[in-house]
């Protein structure tokens, strides 16, 4: 029951996953299965929230110096949840507007700013990595610099633009394609291993 049944379930549902794609008549069933996966997955949310809560509760219990911030997380989480749920049952209410504003003016700018940090990280990564240590690093460096030039080229530098187009069209496509094919085989192999029950790491641990 502890090990055999999960493996059997993985096998059965693995076959279903294959069948819904190669038997056209099961196309309607695919939607049912996708709904199933969404439903099943939604309950895992409880595990996630409890793990997060535990993490921050430990901080608070141990009187960690950042415990104030753990309270911030709890308060905003509950606040979002409450206004969101009330807003769901009372559309067009103040709660829903507040929820919308929290999304648009708290979540969105935080998201965008975190994303925008990449502008700086990519600079320092380039500074550190693009050094002609070995011939490989030199190739990386040259390709990177040429493309960066090409993207803002003007006047006499337009040649960089053409080189960029070529670099993207030929070597980059070739490298990415080779990688993708290999990765595809790896995915197929691992998936077969899971369906056959050879790969069991997802059940937590070895034998």
């Amino acid at each position, binding site marked *: 029951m*502890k090990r055999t*049944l999960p493996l059997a*379930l993985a096998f059965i*549902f693995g076959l279903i*996953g294959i069948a819904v794609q190669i038997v056209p008549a099961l196309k309607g069933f695919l939607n049912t*299965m996708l*709904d*199933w*996966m969404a*439903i*099943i*997955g*939604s*309950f895992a949310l*409880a*595990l996630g*929230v*409890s793990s997060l809560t535990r993490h921050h509760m430990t901080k608070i219990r141990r009187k960690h110096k950042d415990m104030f911030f753990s309270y*911030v*997380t709890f*308060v*905003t*989480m509950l*606040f*979002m949840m409450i206004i969101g749920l009330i807003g769901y049952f009372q559309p067009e209410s103040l709660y829903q507007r507040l929820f919308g*504003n929290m999304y648009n003016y*708290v979540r969105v*700018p*935080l998201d*965008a*700013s975190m994303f*925008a*940090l990449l*502008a*700086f990280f*990519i600079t320092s990564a380039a500074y550190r990595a693009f050094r002609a240590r070995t011939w490989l*690093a030199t*190739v*990386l460096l*040259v*390709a990177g610099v040429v493309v*960066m030039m090409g993207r803002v080229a003007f006047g006499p530098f337009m040649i960089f633009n053409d080189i960029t187009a*070529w670099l*993207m069209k*030929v*070597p980059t*496509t*070739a*490298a990415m*394609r*080779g990688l*993708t*094919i290999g*990765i*595809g085989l790896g995915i197929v192999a691992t*998936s077969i291993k*899971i369906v056959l029950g050879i790969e069991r790491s*997802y*059940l*937590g641990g070895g034998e």
Partner: protein
Amino acid sequence: MLFWYTVAVLLSLAIFSFLWKDNPLYKFAEHLFVGTMVGYTIVMVFSQIIMRKIVDPITLAVHNHQYLNLISLIIATLIGLLYLSRFSQKAQWVSRYPISITVGFWSGYAIVTSFKTNILTQVRGTVVDDMGAPLLNGELLGDFIKSPSWSSLDLAVSGPLLVFGVIVVLIYFFFSIKNENPMVRFANKPALLYLMLGFGASFGYTFMGRISLFIGRMNFIFNEWWPLLKQTIGG
């Protein structure tokens, strides 16, 4: 309006302060972010899945006497509920059932899709181009010899170089062949050359988009918030 815009600007600045060093402002923004996002996810799961995929369909199924549908929904819900067994020390292992169903289904699903998109389409794309013309094309080489120019050279060699690149990269990732094998030794250097050219170029190519993101944030502050602030204070 100004209030919310100001909140957005202050939070953005708090995030950017992380570049200098970790500080209470950043910590506040970070924890606020986590709280908002988790709260938001809970609401979304509730409204989009619990209500739309479980409660509403079940009510509808009962109403329309579609018992098969009803049973399917109830089974899925019960399986999902098994996750909650993790909260008990003893029955923890029951949560493996939903996990293996999820993992099993997606694995089976991935076999066909990955074969399609990662392997077949890509291999085909390396034999012929989008228009269906073969990539190794002797005619184009002939054209180049007849009238040598940069563009005809590009047309003539791009296809073969692409094919060669894909082959050497594939060979590079053989794991069970010893490094002394002549084929592997031959492919090693060109494969790395292709990979590094590709990685360098992609890095440079993405650079532009990342800078745009930052410019976008600054545009928000200086071209949206600042005028609004001036307008409100001025008027």
